[in-house]
């Protein structure tokens, strides 16, 4: 099973993948392309990844969080390629017998993905395009 996709994300399919009859709650997080970043307009985003390494890094995060919250099941899918404003770039589902663990697990998963997984985004807008996080020094 891959954590990366080039297709539109179907969050409910992700929910169906993880929910068990013992679960009393799931938290679904979706990251969405917005129309602005640091004061300038954004029209679309191109997502790039070091695919095999990104798969491994997301897999480590899922395994860690499922170990930390032993009753929680985690599913993740991150979309790559060209996305428009309003498109979901990532969906995370954390299902658990109780809501507290589901909320906590979901927060940790998205925070860690943003820190360590080799995925990049190039924002495009009327003012041009730029790779987020890269400061030009020339």
């Amino acid at each position, binding site marked *: 099973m891959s954590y990366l996709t080039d297709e539109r994300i179907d969050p409910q399919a992700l929910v169906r993948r993880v929910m068990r009859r013992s679960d009393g709650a799931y938290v679904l997080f979706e990251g969405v392309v917005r129309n602005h970043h640091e004061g300038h307009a954004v029209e679309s985003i191109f997502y790039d990844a070091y695919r095999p390494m990104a798969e491994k890094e997301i897999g480590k995060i899922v395994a860690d969080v499922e170990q930390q919250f032993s009753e929680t099941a985690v599913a993740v899918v991150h979309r790559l390629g060209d996305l428009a404003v309003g498109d979901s770039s990532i969906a995370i589902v954390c299902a658990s017998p109780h809501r507290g663990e589901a909320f906590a697990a979901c927060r940790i998963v998205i925070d860690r993905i*943003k820190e360590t997984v080799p995925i990049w985004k190039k924002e495009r807008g009327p003012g041009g395009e730029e790779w987020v996080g890269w400061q030009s020094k020339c």
Partner: protein
Amino acid sequence: MKVRLLYFAVLRDITGQSESDLDVPEGSRPREVWQRLRASYEKLAGYDQPPMAAINESYASPDAVLHEGDELAFIPPVAGG
């Protein structure tokens, strides 16, 4: 010895390639490969410190020793999610 260098995101745009095979001296480290890139691409000249590095799909120190056939990638600041 030969190592394969992979380029992603801004580094692919700057270098105009997605991978290249490099001949490097035995015992080379990512830091030295980065200096070679800086010397080749004006847009990288201002970056005396390398970004994070990955060897064979795992994060590695810029001072880790490379081996024949290794796959090296520099990881610019990530922005997933």
